[in-house]
């Protein structure tokens, strides 16, 4: 078990190093940072001096090593565009994104699993068929279109919910939260649905497919043949077995919510890191882009790690240590 965790953590570090390499490459290949920092009229000598000062003339490896060391300490330099430390920028906008992602993730998971189980158990009912049809629309419509549609219906026509921004926020120990104010909560609804809908339909279809598969297995038939109640068979046995493979994909889906937040944040003018990233791309603000890339990678790596450990906890067959000694 311990060896397994250590191995997985080492793998994660390796992944992060590769991503760091890509981020670092951004600096060298996307635009010239010097151009972004000095005006058109700066002389070549001035530029060279700045280059030396920034260490841009050092050998590749030592530059990379510096980048990684600083990144590990949360230092991604200064934003070209806003002239503020990148980390500060990201941290100030992270709560908005994390709260949005959290609410979407919970929505996607709860409704995804709920609908998935329901449609698997009531395979041919009209409610199930309706859910399945609607979910097809959910998968095939692009996120921004869903966002625009929701804004049109609930913000413009019905005027029930705000169409942009976070509403009022409260700051608690450096963390700005929208959970504690009515406008903050109302503002969360539309973007959270927009962001979570796609993941929800994916999770739902996955759960449904997996559960139908499990319901056909011999151990479910045998459980029924032993006279266990429907509830025990469906939820005690079938659901648990369904969740084993679902955990992995669901975990990855939740991770990708943070990545997908870019589009939703743009549509709803949500002041999160996704919107920050889009603006950075427009201005070729490489330090912010690099930091964002690393942050998303870190989120994926951490979620992956948690998912693997969960998987291990749920499925006894993976705990080989005990099995090997007995037969």
């Amino acid at each position, binding site marked *: 078990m311990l060896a397994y965790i250590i191995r997985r953590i080492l793998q994660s570090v390796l992944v992060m190093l590769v991503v760091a390499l890509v981020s670092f490459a951004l600096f060298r290949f996307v635009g010239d940072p010097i151009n972004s920092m000095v005006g058109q009229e700066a002389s070549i000598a001035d530029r060279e001096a700045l280059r030396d000062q920034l260490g841009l003339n050092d050998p590749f490896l030592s530059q990379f090593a510096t980048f990684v060391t600083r990144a590990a300490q949360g230092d991604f330099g200064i934003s070209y565009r806003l002239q503020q430390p990148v980390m500060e920028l990201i941290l100030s906008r992270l709560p908005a994104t994390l709260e949005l992602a959290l609410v979407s993730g919970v929505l996607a998971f709860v409704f995804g699993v709920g609908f998935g189980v329901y449609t698997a158990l009531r395979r041919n009912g009209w409610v199930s068929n309706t859910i399945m049809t609607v979910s097809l629309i959910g998968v095939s419509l692009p996120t921004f279109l869903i966002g625009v549609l929701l804004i049109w219906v609930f913000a413009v026509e019905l005027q029930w919910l705000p169409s942009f921004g976070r509403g009022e926020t409260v700051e608690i120990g450096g963390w700005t939260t929208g959970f504690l104010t009515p406008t903050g909560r109302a503002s969360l609804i539309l973007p959270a649905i927009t962001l979570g809908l796609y993941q929800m339909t994916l999770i739902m279809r996955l759960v449904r497919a997996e559960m139908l598969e499990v319901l056909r*297995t*011999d*151990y479910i*038939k*045998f*459980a*029924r*043949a*032993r*006279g*266990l*109640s*429907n509830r*025990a068979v469906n939820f*005690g*046995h079938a659901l*648990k*077995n369904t969740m*084993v493979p679902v955990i992995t994909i669901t975990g990855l889906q939740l991770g990708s919510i943070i990545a997908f937040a870019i589009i939703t944040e743009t549509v709803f003018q949500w002041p999160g890191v996704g919107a920050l990233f889009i603006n950075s791309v427009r201005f070729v603000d490489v330090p912010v882009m690099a930091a964002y890339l690393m942050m998303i990678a870190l989120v994926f790596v951490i979620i992956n790690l948690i998912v693997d450990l969960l998987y291990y906890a*749920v*499925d*006894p*067959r993976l705990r080989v240590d*005990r*099995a090997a000694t*007995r*037969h």
Partner: protein
Amino acid sequence: MTDALLSVRNLRVEFPTRRGVLTAIDDVSFDIMPGEVLGVVGESGAGKSLTGAAIIGLLEPPGRIAGGEILLKGERIDNLGAEAMRRIRGKRIGMVFQDPLTSLNPLYTVAQQLIETIRTHADISESEARKKAIALLDRVGIPAAARRIDDYPHHFSGGMRQRVVIALALCAEPELVIADEPTTALDVSVQSQIIDLIKEICAERGAAVMLITHDMGVIAETADRVAVLYAGRIAEIGPVRQVITAPEHPYTAGLMGSIPTLTQTDARLVQIPGAMPRLNAIPQGCAFNPRCEKAFDRCFKERPAPVLRDADGRKVACWLYDAIDTPAKEQANG
């Protein structure tokens, strides 16, 4: 009415499909007496498993019982509601499936699965159920049962897992156990142990057994009576000794020709030329007529029904044989 434990009367199982209704079981009748072992044999697709599923009320839709009745101790169980039937499953009729590797839920320990089943059917405490489970595991031959009970299924070998499955099927003390090819998926070396175990433990508890198998050798050693199924119908049914030593139906005779010799263990060969017809292509008249050497005019026109052949209750569905005159008492007996 007889004192049969289980009575299957004119059972008919159908699958409605887009291209019409398929009749998978047609007019099947037999009885199982308390404590009796009834062997059920037939080629793959003959309808053995479907018969078992129909009895225990687990036909998978769209399959359905379209006719006939099933009686347990004289009471109909084929038309019970879902909840009433659930109470019979496990409690009065137990079931052992073919593949022990897939019959147990991999995510629960043997203890969890046994205790859950025991407590579903009896109002006893967790610790009492556990004691009972350990005793049962011990009885089915799991060494160090008290310790092994907390292992997961994948910690056991195939033969051991089938013992666990048997314990699970028997843990609510059913009156009838349906064992559907309980050894087909097992190593040859443990097959006879498992068959012996089923036979012994059921005898001990007075449970009757419906033993579905391809293996005529197993039937010969284990069963009291045997039913030979062909294309969803009973070809011949009767006491094992009579049917095996003097088969009457040409299909049974062919099957006997395929009983393995002592050195040959694969009993699945059927040495009758041709194959069993598919459900949508069952010929008119006797279903066996395309493969039967003795077929004559009548076999292609009319379908033979099982008729009583002797005082021991053997029945044969073949135009070569006429019913004997018997007292009414025998007629009623399946």
